[in-house]
């Protein structure tokens, strides 16, 4: 214990190390991967993101009767690996730094569907 006391005394005078999170929000790092942003205008519904998603968080649903195609994104399954953002040929997906908040129910996000 005596060897530790030097540290303890130093810590006593060096001010708090704690990040006061909910009160002061730290600026996220520019490379942080926290949220998948989707731009439906650029999307061509090619389905590459749905095929390569390792967590099956993205799927493309096709409604042949009503000629609708829509992209379904489940943010609860997303592992933020940014594989889809890397491989999207249209550049309609990218990772954003702002994190998701907590939620009390699971929901999936449907994209604006496209007429085929």
């Amino acid at each position, binding site marked *: 214990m005596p060897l530790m006391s030097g540290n303890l005394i130093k810590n006593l005078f060096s001010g708090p*190390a*704690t*990040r006061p*999170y*909910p009160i002061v*929000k*730290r600026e996220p790092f520019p490379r942080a991967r*926290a949220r998948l942003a989707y731009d439906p205008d650029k999307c061509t519904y090619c389905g590459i993101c749905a095929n390569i998603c*390792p*967590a*099956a*968080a993205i799927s493309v649903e096709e409604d042949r009767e009503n000629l609708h195609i829509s992209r379904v994104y*489940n*943010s*609860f*399954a*997303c*592992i*933020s690996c940014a594989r889809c953002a890397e491989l999207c040929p249209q550049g309609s997906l990218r990772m954003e730094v702002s*994190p*998701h*908040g*907590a*939620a*009390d*129910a*699971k929901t999936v996000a449907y994209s604006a569907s496209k007429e085929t």
Partner: protein
Amino acid sequence: MGFLKRARVKSPWILHYCTGGCNGCDIEILACLTPLYDVERFGMLNIGNPKHADVLMITGPVNWKNREVLQRLYAQTPDPKVVIAVGACAATGGVFHNCVNTLGGVDKVIPVDVYVRGCAARPEAIIDGVVLALQKLEEKRSGGVAHAAGAR
């Protein structure tokens, strides 16, 4: 009585259990307890006994062997209780969605009140989740009191 119940919301005790994830969320939960995020300033305490806990923090996609342990832990926690599912695999199975021995989410076994997204969930997100869980706890508590008064 009022004092005890208020103390519970002001100072929730957390039981953390890993049901077979990758550990990433577990170390982030532990990181929440250490100086840089220090959730103890909200009065939260990580404890090892479910009988003292108010909030269950569950990580991982629940496997078959863990299922009974989890059910038992849930049954041992006194009411009112709140369950937080931390991480993508606790919510939906995440990257383990096609693994043979997983059930794909905590909500397949016990009711979940709060989901925290991310893989691994960041400490900030976990603190957000706990804050939401406390609101839920308060709601449950007031609901529970009304019910008890009605029964009497």
